[in-house]
């Protein structure tokens, strides 16, 4: 500290101040390349995609002729896109509920002073370290109608549970969420577990002294206290549902009559198989709008919380 003090007296206040201002300029300059990269590769590209959705680019030759909302209208009226919306609703329902219920359940159980907690935790989280492609390869084999889980059911005398899984022409997409939730629930569990560990012991003790049983403790105290984590989990799993691509491609593809088609797989095929870039851009822009509706309010609320 003695050193700093001599420095302090050696530097007059104005020199010191000027020095900091100069450093602040250096800081801004150092940040600039990243700002430019994000501005171009994220925000300009999004605007560009929106513009392509309003143009008339339907072949491999670039065509920026402005045509307005025609491609949007055609897309929203198409059977395939309507199936995508239906499938998104089903997928979101299945994926979000499984991830949040399983994640919360496992976190609350692991929070009960469990022997071998680390082993359980490792098993539950490791699927998150595995790619969706690998997950899809394993589950595709497990969900074959003629073997896999159906075979297991049969051998266990549970033959009535046999299913066509993702080949089901109506609810096939729901079965894809079994695989994606297998992969993602551990992440949600980790979030809940960290939050549970942050609840002070006095809260539980006070509840117990008041004669609160475990059910009421969770119902009236712990679950409300975990609301911010649940909010985060809803946003993360909701985003996962909107953007899902890999696992659908590997497991089921677009399915019979688009029964397992999703926005991202549709967008990909419009772009790479059909070269209908304006149609692809409509789907891409729509995905951006959906995600922004979910993410922007969330991030603003997180920021508000941190400022308080």
């Amino acid at each position: 500290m003695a050193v700093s003090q001599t420095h302090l007296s050696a530097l007059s206040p104005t020199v010191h101040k000027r020095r900091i201002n100069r450093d602040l300029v250096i800081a801004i300059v150092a940040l600039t390349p990243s700002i430019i990269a994000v501005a171009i590769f994220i925000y300009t590209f999004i605007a560009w995609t929106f513009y392509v959705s309003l143009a008339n680019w339907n072949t491999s030759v670039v065509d920026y002729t402005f045509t307005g909302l025609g491609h949007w209208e055609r897309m929203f009226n198409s059977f395939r896109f309507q199936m995508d919306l239906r499938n998104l609703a089903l997928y979101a329902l299945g994926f979000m509920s499984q991830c949040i219920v399983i994640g919360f359940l496992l976190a609350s159980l692991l929070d009960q002073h469990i022997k071998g907690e680390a082993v359980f935790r490792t098993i539950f989280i490791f699927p998150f370290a595995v790619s969706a492609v690998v997950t899809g390869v394993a589950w595709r084999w497990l969900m074959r109608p003629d073997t896999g889980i159906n075979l297991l059911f049969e051998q266990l005398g549970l033959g009535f549970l046999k299913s066509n899984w993702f080949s089901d022409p109506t609810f096939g997409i729901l079965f894809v969420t079994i695989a994606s939730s297998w992969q993602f629930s551990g992440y949600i569990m980790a979030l809940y577990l960290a939050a549970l560990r942050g609840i002070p012991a006095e809260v539980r003790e006070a509840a117990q002294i008041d004669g609160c049983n475990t059910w009421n403790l969770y119902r009236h105290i712990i679950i409300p206290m975990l609301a911010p984590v649940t909010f985060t989990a809803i946003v993360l799993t909701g985003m996962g549902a909107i953007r899902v691509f890999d696992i659908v491609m590997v497991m089921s593809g677009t399915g019979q009559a688009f029964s397992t088609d999703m926005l991202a797989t549709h967008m990909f095929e419009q772009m790479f198989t059909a070269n209908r870039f304006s149609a692809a851009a409509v789907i891409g822009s729509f995905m951006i709008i959906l995600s922004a509706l979910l993410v922007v309010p969330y991030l603003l609320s997180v920021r508000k919380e941190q400022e308080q």
Partner: protein
Amino acid sequence: MRHAFSLKRLWSRGAIYATLIAFALYFLMPVYVLVNTSFKPYTEVSIARMWELPQGLYLGSFSEAWSKVSPNFLNSLIVTVPAAIISSLIGSLNGYIFSKWRFRGSNTIFLLFLIGMFLPYQGILIPMVLTLRAFGLYGTIPGLIFIHCVFGIPITALMFRTYYANVPDDLVDAGKIDGCGFFGIYRHILLPIAAPAFAVVLLWQFTSIWNDFIIGLVVLSNPRLAPVTVAVQNLAGSFTTEWNIQMSGALIAAAPTIIVYLLLGKLFMRGLLAGSVKG
């Protein structure tokens, strides 16, 4: 009374462990199938005997799968390692600026970074392909590395900002008083204590870039240059490929991230929490 209470307690402890074990078995079921099928020769792979253990440890599936996916495994390595390192370095600088050199508007810029982190890639794929093509980077490995570095900017900035925020500002002020400038403070005060943050961010970036499918699929359309995730999908997509080869190919593709996770699980866990924006 006391007896009844402890009996009830015993019962509820039993139920807790039974539920956890049931879920553990459920979580391990796909792993069992992957590993089990990988060690069987094709003649032993049948839909009726899927759950039966192999008669011996047959390694032929692995060597055959390796001969098919090894070039792509190498591609993934060539892409992932530099991209993870470069994006961690960029993130460490950005996180330092966002946490210790706040200026008017810096919080808004940070918020815009975060929003960008969440938006789906489908909203930018078309311009990305056009731009890479214009610069001759489309279909090349440097092009893919570049894209991963750019899309890593928000998450790495977030992770480092969270870490540096816990470094007391007094330490930075002391550095300023000692005459350290912008880079001096970074090098002498923050970098020496940033090793844990680097480990977490490197691990996170390594895992997410290694596991990426869509960007690799779009940027490297040539199957010879494609990353290993795309190669595994191509293996699995062709119905002529034997199941044992598909499974061992998938295991080979998953091996690096699984090994890293088992060795450095604690850091991975911290990355999970730091990557969720909360706090």
